[in-house]
């Protein structure tokens, strides 16, 4: 067995230390001039920073020795299977389950339920977002296989989103645009992206840089469009309610 686990870990820790240093510096500046926190609170924060440092080091180490190389290998294997169209359903499944279980999506669902006063059931949004992300990853597969420019997806996507904002209820619109990141969890931007680069590198006529990337952007669009769609449904219901109320009032006036 020839497994690499901690190769280059020291170097990684050095890199992470440099990445966190500016944040620590800024905090210390505020501590001296504005915050002046007590000794006890400082210890809490120091523990937090140390945990962040260790966590980031292990996370990136795992990405380096596992996700990036193996993700690309899997991509290369998948890209050279006989029935490449299989990649499209595989993409859908990967995206669907990634979103379905993602804790950040759960948080979003809570927010939306609160904003709609329970009118949008949690399950509905969960399935809308998960199917949306599934479609996004599947579309990215199609993009690689056929070599379609990202523009043909991104441009209509955002134009539709901006038009939908006009018809969606206000509370939903603000939640929608902030929700772009919920589905681009730690697996999507690392492992699935590496897989896509692998697939693009073995598909004839594709440039990994041009065709492999762009998937994260499409995945980010899915929750935005999902929330806006539900927002339009909800604003319709609001209007109906309003119409009913005014009708009822008019009725009373008649009498």
């Amino acid at each position, binding site marked *: *067995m020839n*497994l690499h*686990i901690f190769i280059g870990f020291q170097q990684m820790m050095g890199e992470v230390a440099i990445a966190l240093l*500016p*944040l620590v*510096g*800024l*905090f210390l500046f*505020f501590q001296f001039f*504005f*915050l002046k926190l007590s000794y006890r609170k400082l210890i*809490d*924060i120091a523990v*937090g*920073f140390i945990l*962040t440092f*260790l*966590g*980031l080091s*292990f*996370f*990136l*180490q*795992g*990405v*380096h020795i*596992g*996700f*990036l190389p*193996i993700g690309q*290998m*899997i991509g290369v294997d*998948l890209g050279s*299977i006989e029935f490449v169209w*299989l990649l499209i359903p595989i993409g859908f*499944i990967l995206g669907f*389950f*990634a979103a379905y*279980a993602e*804790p*950040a999506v759960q948080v979003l669902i809570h927010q939306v339920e609160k904003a709609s006063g329970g009118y949008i059931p949690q399950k509905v949004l969960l399935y809308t977002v998960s199917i949306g992300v599934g479609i996004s990853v599947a579309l990215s597969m199609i993009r690689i296989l056929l070599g379609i420019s990202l523009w043909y997806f991104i441009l209509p996507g955002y134009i539709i989103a*901006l038009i939908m904002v006009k018809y969606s209820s206000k509370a939903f619109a*603000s939640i929608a645009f*902030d929700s*772009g*990141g919920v589905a681009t969890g*730690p*697996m999507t*931007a*690392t492992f*699935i*992206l*590496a897989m896509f*680069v692998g697939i693009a590198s073995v598909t004839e006529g594709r*440039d990994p*840089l041009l*065709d492999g*990337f*762009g998937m994260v952007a499409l995945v*980010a669009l899915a929750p935005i469009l999902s929330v806006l769609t539900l927002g339009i449904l909800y604003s319709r219901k609001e209007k109906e309610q309003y119409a009913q109320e005014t009708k009822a009032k008019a009725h009373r006036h008649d009498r």
Partner: protein
Amino acid sequence: MDNIKDTTIEVIQSVLPITIVITILQFTLIWLPTETFLQFLIGVVLVGFGLILFLLGVNIGLLPVGEMIGSALSKTKSIWLIVIFGFLLGVVVTIAEPDVRVLSTQVDQVSNGGIPKSVLILAVALGVGLFVALSMIRIVFSIPITYILAGGYGIIFLLAAFTPTTFVPLSFDSGGVTTGPLTVPFIMALGVGTASVLKGKSASQDGFGLVALASIGPIISVLILGVIYG
């Protein structure tokens, strides 16, 4: 203790589904050598363990810091201090953001060093910083968010005409990864803090939209990077 348990469950939930799908693929379609597949599983364990520690650290140390800095800044009532430090915080947090690091590592590798990691991270960080600063200005002067969104995307489409095509997917992906596990809570904390002290009444309304704006910044800055490189 509850915190540790919740975080652990959360991380397992977000790592497990894809691991299962890949495991199924491994034994049906891919058949990687056992050694290589084990290497993948070790990666999963390291990533999961790292994420748990990282999220705990963010909750214990970094988030409270973000909130405290947000409210300390707002109390100064100085627009310029808020804007300048909003910019600095955006930059500093993005430099530490895990997803941004991973994306730029991959780009560095795929482009054979043509787009170096440090350059991309810096460009993304400056983009986020600039738009966090802009969001602060927006909160202070209550500029409608749709103006900035429409303006931002307008600039993006304009820039895209002048940049090499390889930079387009890259720039949009950079926008996607900035909304990672560190930037989002940190920037939200800062924005809600600032909005609540400065405006009082419509605090939550103004605090929203920060993340959306923060992800436009890197798209623009990476496109500009492309114009320079091209």
